């Protein structure tokens, strides 16, 4: 036989494939699942962001710069001043209002444009009416196709838009181009000003500059002249601001998907490691027959790559299908509520498809790298003998890489976010997890050595086996630890979050009844007269109006909510869920402002600090008097006293009002009285704290539904890896079982021995997994979540759930071990002893 004829691939892989078909299929499936999840999340995110940016691009058109400010707008006299500047070729004024539709038909982004000026910059906003004058008529509205579909209206129909609480009737004069995305309505700028109380105010000016203008220099010069609270920026800044809120959420989903891929890689590792162990003598024989180390290593890694490629290809197809299904069921934000009114279209993205394909292959290659190098490095002589399997895995037990990873992980958890993303937090989790897995053989050996030696022979043998050969068990342990720690950390994080939201809801809903015109739109509000009527309803003891506006503090961040309600500066904790201490402004100090946690993270506000907020076109001084928790507004919120707000803006309307009732007054009766007390009262939303709590928690659960699903997938892959590696291990020990049978052990005893082994390995894995999971949950809560969403939360460990999880895992591992043992102890176990030579 000539060595030249022996191809490593044919000899090594062909045989392995025949012997290990089932496990290979599992490995491929695990990679496929990881790639599918990652690609699906990417597709959905990209579709949503594409749609959002297309919408913003239509609204921005091809403006060079845009001047933006608070949601309440700014004085229109700025428009001619900017338009007349010599660098400006065309200036297009826009009034944007988030309009609430009458009859509970939802919301509409309403744009008032000057068609003559918007036309050249934003052609997508110009509709075609029944005649050319419809674009100017005050009763005409043009709807985007998405808006018309959502409302079920067509040209000629009427829609009612709330102004205050009463509807303004508009005629659908036509539709915007089918290419104009989003839920938009467009009217003449004068009509929007007139009919929605915006006379004298605009919210945006889009600028096209003369060719040759230095855009950056002009931007800086204009910015210096703008009133406080206004920014001039390139349109891309709007997109950044619009997507910044959802960015951390999207990245989190991507990371979860990568975790699934990581566990898939782990499964490839366990499969390949055991395959190498099983084929040790074959591989050694090949080396003896002249196959070079390098060729052997390349072949074994090639196996991994092939598994990865097959899995990744399957994963891409499955990922697209998954994305399509998820979008149709949950919507493009996967239920999180980030992309309201966005109707995404999935597109195949060659770039990200290629990236996820490569990630899938890389995970599999990395998984097979260590076993391949180990096999190639082995001395052929000793390897040809039986009983050398243990040595193969010995190298994996070196403690230093694991300890280094741990140190790196702990250090990374103290680092700040990178461009708003908790990248070091993710790195910390990855380091802690991988470090632990790498350290597992040592940890397992120490744990098992400390365990008392059982009396019964099967138990004693099992423990001896584990102590003597911790390397083999470490593969199973890695799978268990990875699965358990991820599951536990996510469970603790979500439980902490949910409990914190629950506690928070208790504190922010102290009243008996909540009456709301609209919190998120501009056109619906309660007038001072409405507020007086509500306060006078019999049974109402006290009423507390709330005004919500939005101000802009940075060009590339989303607007900050400016809230105003009556707050007693001496006792703010009664009306706000404060976190930590508060200060009472001294006489002569500016009025107090209570800010939310994101304001601290994003804008660096500190308690006691003097700040200035752009309100009604000028900088108004405040003292940061306290920090409160707000899970409702991720972009940050500032609460000021209602009287201060009214004095600054002259705006005494309210978005909502909280009512405290007399003892014995019926909330139902008061609700009916509220609807009847004010004109247009039928358009008010009236809810009890209980109803609001239920809605809020269901929104929370919907947001985390996808998180749960991804987590479950990762855990599933981990468990599959666990059972697969266990059965592989057991199969590899057929000779040992044969010897034990020769020595007189019964099948039953061997079964018991395997069950104890399974139990012991799982118990160690579970204990370590719980500890690491707890540690990772701290990173999730205090680093990843805080840096992503700027929300603080208290730690709540769901003990019952974790206990159940542990019990299931232990039982599963024990049963897997038993089942594999049964499978391994066929009739030829006794004969397997002869395999030794």
């Amino acid at each position, binding site marked *: 036989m000539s060595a030249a004829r022996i191809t490593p691939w044919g000899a090594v892989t062909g045989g392995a494939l025949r012997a290990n078909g089932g496990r290979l299929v599992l490995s491929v499936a695990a990679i496929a699942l990881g790639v599918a999840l990652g690609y699906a999340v990417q597709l959905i995110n990209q579709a949503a962001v594409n749609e959002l940016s297309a919408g913003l691009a239509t609204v921005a058109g*091809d403006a060079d710069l845009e001047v933006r400010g608070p949601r309440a707008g700014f004085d*229109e006299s700025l*428009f*001619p001043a900017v*338009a*007349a500047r010599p660098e400006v070729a065309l200036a297009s*004024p826009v009034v944007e209002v988030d309009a609430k539709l009458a009859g509970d038909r939802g919301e509409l982004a309403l744009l008032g444009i*000057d*068609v*003559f*000026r*918007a*036309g*050249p910059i934003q*052609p997508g906003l*110009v*509709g*075609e*009416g*029944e*005649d*050319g*004058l419809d*674009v*100017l*008529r*005050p009763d005409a509205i043009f709807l985007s196709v998405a808006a018309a579909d959502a409302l079920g209206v067509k040209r000629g129909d009427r829609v009612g838009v709330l102004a205050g609480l009463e509807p303004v009737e508009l005629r659908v004069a036509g539709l915007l181009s089918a290419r104009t995305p989003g839920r938009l309505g467009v009217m*003449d*700028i*004068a*009509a929007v*000003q*007139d009919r929605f109380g915006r*006379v*004298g105010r605009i919210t945006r000016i889009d600028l096209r500059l003369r060719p040759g203008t230095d855009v950056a220099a002009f931007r800086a010069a204009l910015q210096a002249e703008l009133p406080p609270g206004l920014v001039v920026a390139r349109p891309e800044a709007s997109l950044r601001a619009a997507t910044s809120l959802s960015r951390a959420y999207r990245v989190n989903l991507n990371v979860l998907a990568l975790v699934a891929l990581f566990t898939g890689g782990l499964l490839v590792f366990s499969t390949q490691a055991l395959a190498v162990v099983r084929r040790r003598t074959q591989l050694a024989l090949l080396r003896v027959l002249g196959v070079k180390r390098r060729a052997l290593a390349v072949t074994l890694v090639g196996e991994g790559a092939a598994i990865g490629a097959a899995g990744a290809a399957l994963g891409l197809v499955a990922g697209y299908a998954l994305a399509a299904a998820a979008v149709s069921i949950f919507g493009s934000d996967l239920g999180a509520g980030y992309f309201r009114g966005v109707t995404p279209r999935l597109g195949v993205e060659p770039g990200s498809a290629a990236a996820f394909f490569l990630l899938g292959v890389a995970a599999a290659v990395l998984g097979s790298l260590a076993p391949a190098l180990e096999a190639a490095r082995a001395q052929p002589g000793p390897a040809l003998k039986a009983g050398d399997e243990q040595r193969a895995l010995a190298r994996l037990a070196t403690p230093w890489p694991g300890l280094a990873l741990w140190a790196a992980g702990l250090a990374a958890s103290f680092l700040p976010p990178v461009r708003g993303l908790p990248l070091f937090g993710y790195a910390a989790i990855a380091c802690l997890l991988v470090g632990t897995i790498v350290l597992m053989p040592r940890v397992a050996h120490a744990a098992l050595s400390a365990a008392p030696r059982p009396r019964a022979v099967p138990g004693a043998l099992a423990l001896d086996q584990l102590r003597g050969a911790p390397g083999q068990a470490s593969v199973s342990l890695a799978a268990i630890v990875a699965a358990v720690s991820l599951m536990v950390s996510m469970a603790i994080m979500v439980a902490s979050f949910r409990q914190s939201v629950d506690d928070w809801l208790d504190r922010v809903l102290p009243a008996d009844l909540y009456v709301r015109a609209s919190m998120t739109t501009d056109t619906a509000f309660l007038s001072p007269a409405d507020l007086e009527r509500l306060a006078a309803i019999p049974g109402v003891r006290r009423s507390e109006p709330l005004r919500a506006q939005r101000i802009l503090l940075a060009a590339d961040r989303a607007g900050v909510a400016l809230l105003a309600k009556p707050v007693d500066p001496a006792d703010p904790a009664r009306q706000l869920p404060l976190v930590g201490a508060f200060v009472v402004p001294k006489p002569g100090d500016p009025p107090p402002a209570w800010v939310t946690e994101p304001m601290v993270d994003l804008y660096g506000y500190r308690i006691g600090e003097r700040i200035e907020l752009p309100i009604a076109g000028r900088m108004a001084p405040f003292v940061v008097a306290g920090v409160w928790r707000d899970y409702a507004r991720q972009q940050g919120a500032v609460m000021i006293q209602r009287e201060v707000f009214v004095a600054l803006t002259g705006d005494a309307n309210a978005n909502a009002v909280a009512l405290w009732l007399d003892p014995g007054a019926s909330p139902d009766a008061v609700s009916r009285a509220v609807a009847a007390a004010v004109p247009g009262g039928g358009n008010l939303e009236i809810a009890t704290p209980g109803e609001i709590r239920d809605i809020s928690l269901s929104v929370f659960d919907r947001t985390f539904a996808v998180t749960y699903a991804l987590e479950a997938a990762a855990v599933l892959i981990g468990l599959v890896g666990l059972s697969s590696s266990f059965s592989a291990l057991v199969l590899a020990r057929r000779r040992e079982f044969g010897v034990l049978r020769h020595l007189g052990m019964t099948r039953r005893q061997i079964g018991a021995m395997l069950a104890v082994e399974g139990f012991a390995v799982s118990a160690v894995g579970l204990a370590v997994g719980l500890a690491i999971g707890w540690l990772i949950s701290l990173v999730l809560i205090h680093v990843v979540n805080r840096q992503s969403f700027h929300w603080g939360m208290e730690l709540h460990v769901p003990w019952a759930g974790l206990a159940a999880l542990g019990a299931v895992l232990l039982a599963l591992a024990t049963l897997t071990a038993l089942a594999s043992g049964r499978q391994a102890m066929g009739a030829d176990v006794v004969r397997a002893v002869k395999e030794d030579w």
Partner: protein
Amino acid sequence: MGMRSVLSPVFCPLSSEPRRAFLAAALALLAPLARAREVAYPAVRPRELVFPRDHGSHPEYRTEWWYVTGWVRDDRGNDFGIQVTFFRNRPGVAEESASAFAPRELLFAHAALADPRHGRLRHDQRARRAGFGLAQAAQGTTDVRIDDWWLRLEGDVYRTSIAARDFSLALSFRPTQPILLQGERGYSRKGPDPAQASYYYSRPHLAVEGTLGADGRTVRVTGKAWLDHEWSSEVLSADAAGWDWVGVNLADGGALMAFRIRARSGETLWAGGTLREAGGRVRALAPGDVAFRPARHWRSPRTGVEYPVAFALRAGTLDLVLEPLIDDQELDSRASVGTVYWEGAVRALAAGREVGRGYLELSGYWRPLRI
């Protein structure tokens, strides 16, 4: 991306044709307005025109324009045709609005440069709502502007500045003759119904001086121009399809304006004009005194529209042949007033000899006016 895709829906109805033809725009406007009857426009009745007040804007009327056309020559002897037009329109919507953006008054502008060496017309257009001092038509004297395009009367001299896409004009127009009142002392009938009329006067023989820029060069020019100022509320009969109009500065110092309104069938619905002889005697031309006979046609390679670019014209005692400076003086203004028309510099010939220079407008050949 031009203004076309954007603005054309706006203006189709306001549209139709500029200048005399722009009267017909009001016709198109009438249809939607008749439904809502959003505003009552003052009727045009014979009255004495008062200057300088009537040089200014008449915002209560539906439409109005200031229309300058002329021939200029640079110091190398090259001839150019120039056109500067400002339109004002009261669409009759949002009259009650409290907003400073209320589109009570709309302004449009066209500018064109005919250069035989370029071969076809250069033209550009603007459209705005009046307001904020950025676009306005002043009352009391001629002073109209859209951003940095403007035309105004400074003392006795009209001046204009136009920075168009591919050319620029900075010109002054000095009157050399008295105002020429059209029709019955400025009351100009456009049809058999006396309500179909406009206030209309002309300033022929304006001495032009200034610069024009194109292809990166600016040249000094001098020449002769004609200004029309016309405003009205009511319109033509429903079956009108378009207009042929001509205004000629005659070489002997005389001035001729002649027009006809064509029916959809092609026959002449109404015609008229004014001839002021060199000596100053003014003769009003009745419908029977004016006849336009097409002499040569030219088809636009862009729109496929065929225009009679040369005419045999009988106007009272005058028999003239009108020959264009260049054939291609088509003006595609679908992007502003929503139509395509031909507005070009022409020579007036009698017995083969040039006896005057002026401008010819051909409208309604692209599409009949919409009613």
